[in-house]
Each structure stands twice: as structure tokens, then as C-alpha cells.
């Protein structure tokens, strides 16, 4: 049984999805989905343990040995990412039943859970597989279910947002497919490990460069790297709250994983950072993304938009770490992938609670919420402080590693800019705090109650994780640095 964990990671949610159709009753379906996601979470914990102890696991699908058969290859990097995805998915699901009650019509509930499971399957599949074409297949599974999930949002703007995402996402997926196709053409293999050994022989050709560029642009579209982020804010703002919380914490992380995987373990650092000017390009885009998106976030009136733009900015931080192409920079990026999932999961879930009670996430509707929903607002404040990077939260740990990595590389101005950018986060978080705590509720408006426990428990699980991993950093830092080291160990 333990030997089959890599495939179970994907098969469990995949098989659970159609099984939902048999159950039909929403309550049951919800519990079943939760169970499936929790199982996936347990599997990913076991996998990570195995990988940390014994090293990379290779699983041959159907007994066909690679490079002919499909291989599932689990190393520290993807075990870590799979843990984040399945963990956040499980916690977020705790609130799903309550949340969609008000946001999605009753008859679509089963459909919602099926799509959710498929989306989870897709993401876990992208992460675990060791086959380049498999990546594309799972990418399509996760994307198609994502478009439909976003379209389930409560007003018609969700349709438009979903359509925007559909167009951009399809372009991205096509680019990725073209990239993979070109790689296959040059090397005759789709197995990632095999690709890594064969690509250097043909690295000097223009075709390989083209393949890399197509692939990376496609991934960056999915990643919502500035300026390819245009689909993201609307998709996050108009999707059902649960979907936003889930995607904000996970979907861009999957793209970040692909970026790391293909750049570091398949094409290799020397190809991407020496042959091609990726360092300047990513550093520039990352910094621009941080500043532009954070500034735009300050001027948004819908809080979901605020945090959506903030997500774009946070991706900028990750990319800055990526662009350093050093061990420290990559560790910082991976840490931020983990930490950002915790922050944004907590924030968007708490916004879901606000939406559930107040019916809106416009800034003006936050007036007086500090007293009416004290626990929810306290969660938003704490997660917001983490987003800013206040000490004793995870945000501080990521910033610390990122800035230290920048200084070690000798990039003093970058270090300064990264710190200054945190101040923009102070502004947009503070707007919410001031409105919620210092403004009296609008006269004549109905007072609302604290969010139900089904929201508070998952929100506070995530908020506590923000604080816990900000104080006891051993687990996250160890895994992130080990993963980064293994990537630099593999690559010559």
C-alpha cells in the first residue's frame, strides 16, 4: 500500500469526483469530499516523510519502466507543494458547506464538489507526475474545472471573469503544449528526468530556446506574473468565496512549481540564467509586479480585489527570489510559497465569512465590523499583519530570508526595495483596519452577528498556522531549504 502512495495521491480525489454523483445529498457529498481531501492530505504527509528520510521516490505507472512508461517522481520539492495544496484544500473545505449555501443555488452543490475534487486532482497531478505531457493533461483538468468553478459565482460578472480566465488560460496552456512539443521533437522523450539528461546535448539550438520560452511564457500566464496577471483579480473577486480561498492559496503555487521544476531540474540553471537573460527579466518583472500591484491594491474598494492584487504582488516576491538563482533565493521563494498559502487562505476564507454575514466585501460595508464580528476581523488583522511581514508571523520569515538572500548576492538596492514594498502592504491592510475599528456602522444598517463556527474554525486554524510557523520555523524552513538544496544538487 505504501509503495503506491504516489499514484494514490492523484487517484483518490479523481475517483471521489464521480462517486459524488451517486451520493447526491449535498450534506453527504460535502462530507465525502472532505474525507477525500483529508485522505489526500494524509497521503501527502506520508510521502513527504518518506522523501525526507529515504530520498526521491520513483513510481512506475502500470509497471512500465521509464522513460517509456509514465513515471511519478516524488522529491522534496513536489512533496512539499503537494502538502500545501492538499492541506489548504482540506481546511478550506471545512467551511464549504456553510459558504456555498448562500452563494450557489442548491441544485448546483453536487456539481460544485465534483468540480472542486477534479481541480484538486489536476493540481496534485501536475505536481506529482514526472512526465511532461502528463503535466499538460493535468493542467487541462485543473484549468477546465477552475473555469467552471469560477463561473459558479453568484452574479453574472463571474461569467465574464471566468471567460477572461478561459481565454488567457487557454493561451497559456497552448503555449505550454507548444513548448513540450518542441522539447519532444528535439529529444524524443517526455520523461522529465530523461529530458534533463538529453536537453544539454541540444541546448545550443534555437528550437530548444524557443521551447523554453514558449513553456515559460505559458507558465507565467498561469502564474499571473505581472504583466500577465490580468485574468486574476476578477476571477478571484467574483468566484465563490471558497473557490477564491482555495485558488489563491494553491493554483498559482502549482505554476510556481512548474517554473522551478522546468528551469532548475530540466533545463538547468546554466541554460536559463547564463544562456538566456532570465535573471534581469525575472528580477525586473518581479519588482515591477510588487510595486505596481501593491499600489493598485491600495486604490481598490472591493476587499477581494485588494487581496487579489496583493496576490499578484506576492507572486512578485516569489519571482524576485527565483531570479536570484541561488540556493538562498530559491529557499526564500519556496518558503514564501508555503507562507503565502497560509496568509491568503486565511484572508480569503475570512472574507468569505464577511460575505456570508454582510453580503458584500466592499470597503464601506466593513464599517463597524470590528465590534460586530470581532473574531473574524481579528483574524483578518492577524493575517494582514502576516502579509505585511510583522515579526512573529510567517510573513516576517519569508521577508527575512528573501532580503538576506538578496544581500548575500550583493543586491543591496533590491533588498531595500523589497522592504519598502512591505509599506505598501501596510497601507492597504490599514485601510481595512481603520474602517472596521474606527468607523461607526452606517446608520440604519442592520447589525450583523459573528460568523458561524464552521467559518471560524478553519479561519483560525489558518491564522494559528500563520503565527505558529512564524515562531517555530523549523519545519517550513528545513523542508524549503532541503528542497532548494536538492534542486541545486541535481543540476550541475
Amino acid at each position: 500500500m505504501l509503495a503506491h502512495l504516489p499514484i494514490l495521491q492523484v487517484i483518490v480525489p479523481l475517483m471521489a469526483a464521480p462517486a459524488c454523483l451517486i451520493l447526491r445529498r449535498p450534506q453527504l457529498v460535502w462530507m465525502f469530499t472532505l474525507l477525500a481531501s483529508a485522505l489526500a492530505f494524509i497521503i501527502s504527509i506520508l510521502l513527504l516523510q518518506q522523501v525526507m528520510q529515504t530520498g526521491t521516490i520513483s513510481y512506475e505507472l502500470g509497471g512500465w519502466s521509464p522513460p517509456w512508461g509514465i513515471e511519478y517522481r516524488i522529491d522534496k520539492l513536489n512533496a512539499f507543494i503537494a502538502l500545501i495544496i492538499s492541506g489548504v484544500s482540506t481546511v478550506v473545505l471545512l467551511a464549504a458547506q456553510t459558504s456555498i449555501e448562500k452563494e450557489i443555488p442548491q441544485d448546483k452543490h453536487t456539481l460544485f464538489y465534483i468540480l472542486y475534487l477534479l481541480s484538486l486532482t489536476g493540481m496534485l497531478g501536475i505536481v506529482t507526475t514526472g512526465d511532461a505531457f502528463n503535466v499538460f493533461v493535468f493542467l487541462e483538468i485543473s484549468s477546465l474545472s477552475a473555469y467552471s468553478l469560477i463561473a459558479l459565482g453568484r452574479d453574472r460578472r463571474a461569467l465574464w471573469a471566468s471567460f477572461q480566465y478561459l481565454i488567457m488560460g487557454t493561451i497559456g496552456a497552448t503555449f505550454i503544449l507548444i513548448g513540450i512539443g518542441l522539447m519532444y521533437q528535439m529529444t524524443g522523450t517526455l520523461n522529465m528526468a530523461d529530458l534533463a539528461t538529453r536537453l544539454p546535448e541540444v541546448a545550443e539550438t534555437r528550437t530548444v530556446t524557443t521551447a523554453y520560452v514558449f513553456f515559460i511564457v505559458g507558465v507565467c500566464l498561469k502564474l499571473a506574473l505581472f504583466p500577465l496577471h490580468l485574468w486574476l483579480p476578477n476571477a478571484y473577486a467574483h468566484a465563490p468565496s471558497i473557490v477564491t480561498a482555495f485558488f489563491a492559496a494553491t493554483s498559482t503555487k502549482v505554476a510556481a512549481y512548474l517554473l522551478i521544476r522546468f528551469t532548475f531540474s530540466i533545463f538547468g540553471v546554466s541554460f536559463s540564467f547564463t544562456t538566456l537573460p532570465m535573471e534581469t527579466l525575472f528580477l525586473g518583472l518581479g519588482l515591477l509586479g510588487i510595486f505596481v500591484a501593491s499600489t493598485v491594491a491600495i486604490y481598490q474598494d472591493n476587499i477581494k480585489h485588494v487581496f487579489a492584487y496583493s496576490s499578484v504582488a506576492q507572486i512578485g516576491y516569489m519571482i524576485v527570489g527565483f531570479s536570484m538563482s541561488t540556493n538562498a533565493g530559491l529557499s526564500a521563494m519556496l518558503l514564501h510559497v508555503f507562507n503565502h498559502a497560509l496568509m491568503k487562505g486565511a484572508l480569503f476564507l475570512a472574507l468569505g465569512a464577511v460575505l456570508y454575514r454582510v453580503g458584500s466585501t466592499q470597503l464601506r460595508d466593513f464599517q463597524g465590523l470590528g465590534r460586530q464580528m470581532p473574531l473574524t476581523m481579528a483574524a483578518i488583522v492577524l493575517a494582514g499583519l502576516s502579509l505585511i511581514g510583522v515579526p512573529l508571523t510567517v510573513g516576517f520569515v519569508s521577508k527575512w530570508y528573501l532580503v538576506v538572500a538578496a544581500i548575500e548576492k550583493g543586491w543591496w538596492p533590491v533588498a531595500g526595495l523589497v522592504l519598502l514594498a512591505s509599506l505598501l502592504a501596510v497601507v492597504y491592510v490599514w485601510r481595512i483596519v481603520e474602517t472596521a475599528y474606527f468607523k461607526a456602522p452606517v446608520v440604519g444598517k442592520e447589525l450583523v452577528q459573528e460568523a458561524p463556527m464552521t467559518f471560524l474554525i478553519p479561519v483560525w486554524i489558518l491564522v494559528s498556522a500563520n503565527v505558529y510557523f512564524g515562531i517555530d520555523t523549523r519545519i517550513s524552513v528545513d523542508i524549503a531549504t532541503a528542497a532548494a538544496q536538492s534542486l541545486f544538487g541535481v543540476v550541475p
Partner: protein
Amino acid sequence: MNLSLATLLQLCILLPIFATLGIVALRRHQNLREAVSIGTSVLVFYAVVSIYLGLQGGATIDVNWLQILPGLSLSFSVEPLGMIFSLIASFLWFVTIVYAIGYMRGHNEDHQTRFYCCFAIAIGSVMGVAFADNLFTLFIFYEILTLSTYPLVTHAGTEAAKKGGRVYLGILLTTSIGFFLFAILGTWVIAGTLDFTQGGVFPAGANTAVLGFILVLFIFGIGKAAIMPFHRWLPAAMVAPTPVSALLHAVAVVKAGVFTVMKVCVLIFGIDLLSVLPTTQSLLYLAGATVLLASVIAMRQDNLKARLAYSTVGQLGYITIGALLASSMGVVGGSMHIAMHAFGKITLFFCAGAILVAVHKSKVSQLDGLGRRMPITMTAFFIASLGIIGIPPAGGTWSKWYLLMGTMDTQQWIILVILLISSLLNIAYLLPISMRAFLFKDPTSNAAVGIKEAPLPCLIAIGITTVGCIALFIYPQPLYELASSILQTSSIAHGQ
């Protein structure tokens, strides 16, 4: 009760923070709630004094809470400078609570529970700053101090208060995250440690240009030290109730700033290294300019609290100068001035608050003849003014004396002249207040009006701090010993 010194040290930080629970629980019973505040402040002061006595006996303290990142831990220890700071802060906290009870009730302020809670957290974090064993711990408590004082600054809840609060938070967070944290990270990368170490942490061959840059980041980043151009938050914070201005902006917050500057100069750079850095000289001149400009601006302020606020900016410059002089005399003078200025300035603020509560006046030009109506308050004001200016019989004399010696030691003649001119300016903006009160006639009152002093708790507090000003003139010995041992006691700082 026989608690170990390490326990006492942790109690200093934790007691005020746990006291908030008691304050919240007793929010419906005013007297009990204030009793919690007073009781805690007495206990904390008792603990600090016990630590002081234990330290005199040669004991060392090292407390380690937890390790956050490899090599970075939340840990505490005691050294003379922190001792000075914690003694002053805990003592003046007690006095301020007494004063605040009189003031807040006399002034019918709202949200008193929130007020006392934030006050307690602020003091807990001041203790954390004072006892921090490394820059990382110091930084964390520095930030908690900023955040916990924000609700105090915006206490009134008016538009002006919110605006002041925004400036306050904006400047302090910008400088601390943008520069201070940057400097800490730079130190971490170059030195590999953030522990306060006698003689500094930087390796011998480090690039002095880079270190000079880091020093600039530190000086600007420690915004609480109010070096121009990052001093605007101090006048902005004057929208707070007077006890807040008194304790936090004459004692705790600003002193946390200069204390940090002092610590960084002495225990991160070390005065030997500091004296050869290329930027030290310009920073000295900047601090000198701050002293002069702030004094000039103070002269032009008619609002009493604003005048005192700018006076604080100037006096903080003295302490920064003391640290940057990079001589033992400068360090002694600067650290003594932390104490002297604390007692003088808190008395002045107490008096300003007393005037506001008793006769509802806040402008210097309205104070004519007030000496007859509020003789005790105005006498105290006069004595404290002398302390700030630095003439006997108040403690400020000694610290300014050593600072001047420090400038001569290092042959900083320009700074010497600046300090002398500034003392004259101090006279020019402080003494006229007392003169108006005692020598001028109140134009509005026709006949003799009776004495109308502030509530009794306020007067008691004013009395205590005024006596403190004088006592520090007569018995500066213990303070001097602590200050002069800052540079020598590596054994106490790290128990080697």
C-alpha cells in the same frame, strides 16, 4: 518571595502584558481596574530594583525564550544601559499611572479600559526593549511598542487624532521596516550575529563604506530617536491625552529610540569602529542640526505641548550626539541624559496636563499670572525647566557636563558650540513660560482668584518627579556608576 533573577526579568515583561487580562476583566469597576494597573507597576518596579541589586552583587542573567531561525532567538540579558532604561521606565510608569488616574477622571475621558490596556502592553514592550539580548529581540519589542501606542495616540477618536495617528504610525513603520530592519539584515549578513557584544560584532576587515551605510540606515531607521527629517511623528503624536504624551513621548517611546541608538553604537559597532566610519561625522552634524533647528522651532510654538514636543526632539539629539561621539565621556553623558531628560520632561508634561485639567489652557500666551492660581504646578515647571536647560539644582547639569566633556575629548569643536548655543535656546523657550506665570499679571482676572490646582493624584505625581529631578542633581552617583560601566562590563552583558 525568593525568585531567581531570570524569573524576575521575565516577569518584568510578562506582568504588564498579563495585567491587561485583569484590566479587561475589571472594566466595570473603575477603582479595582486602576488598582490592577498600580499594583502591576509597583511589582514591576520592585522586580527591576531587585534585578539591579542582584546585578550589583555580580550576578548575571541570561534568558532564552525560543529560537525562531537558526542563530536568531528571542533572548534577554541585563547590562548597565538597559538597567538605567528599565529603572527609569518602570519607576515613571508607576508615577504616570497615579497621574493618569487623576487626569483621565478629571477630564472625563472615554475608553479608559482600552487606555490602561495599551499602556500596560507598551510598558511590557519597553521592558523587552531594555532587556533584549540581541537586535532581533529588540526589533520585535520595538514594533510591538509602536503598534500598542497607536490606539493611545488616536485615543480621542477625532479626525485630528486619526490624522496624527496616521503620521505617527506611518513614519515609525516606514523607518523601522524600510531602514531599521534593512540595517539589521545587513548586520546579520556581514557579521553573522545580532547579539549585543562589547566592542561590536563586525569582523575586523569589513568594508567601512558598507558599514558606514549601515550606520546611516540605523540612525534614520530608529525613527523613535526623532532625528530630522524623521521627527514629524513626535509633534503629531501630541494629540494624545497628556499622560500618554508624558510617559510615551517623553520617556518610553522616544527613550526606546535613543536607547536603541546607544546600544547599536556601543554594542553593535563598538566605539572604536564607530570613530573611523566615514559617515559618523556627517551624522553628528545632522544630530547637531536637529538640536538647533528643533530648539528654534520650539521657540515659535505657542501651544505648550507642541513646544515641549519640539524641545524633546532637540534633547533627543543630545543623546544621539553622545552616542555618535564615540568616546567614553559621550556615552556616559548620553546615557545619563536619558535619565535626566526623562525626569525633567515628564514633569513638564505633567504640568501641562495639570494646567489643561485645572484651568483648561493649552497655549503659552494664556499662562500669564498662572503662578498665583497654580503655585505648586508652576514651581515644579520651573525646576523641571532648569533640568532640561542643564543648570543646578537639577540633574540635567551633570549629563550636559559630560556631553560637553565628550565633545572636548574628541575635539568636536563645532558640536561643542552647537551644544552651548542650544542651551541658550533652551533658556529662551522654557524660562519665559515660568516668567509669564510668576511675573506677569493675568489680564482677564480682575480681582484675586483662589488657588485652583489639578486633582490630588496629579499633584502627587508632579511632586515625585520634581523631587526626582533635584535628587538626581544631589545623588548622581549610582547613575554615573551605571553609565560609566556600560563600556567596561562585557562580563555582565554576556556572562563570559
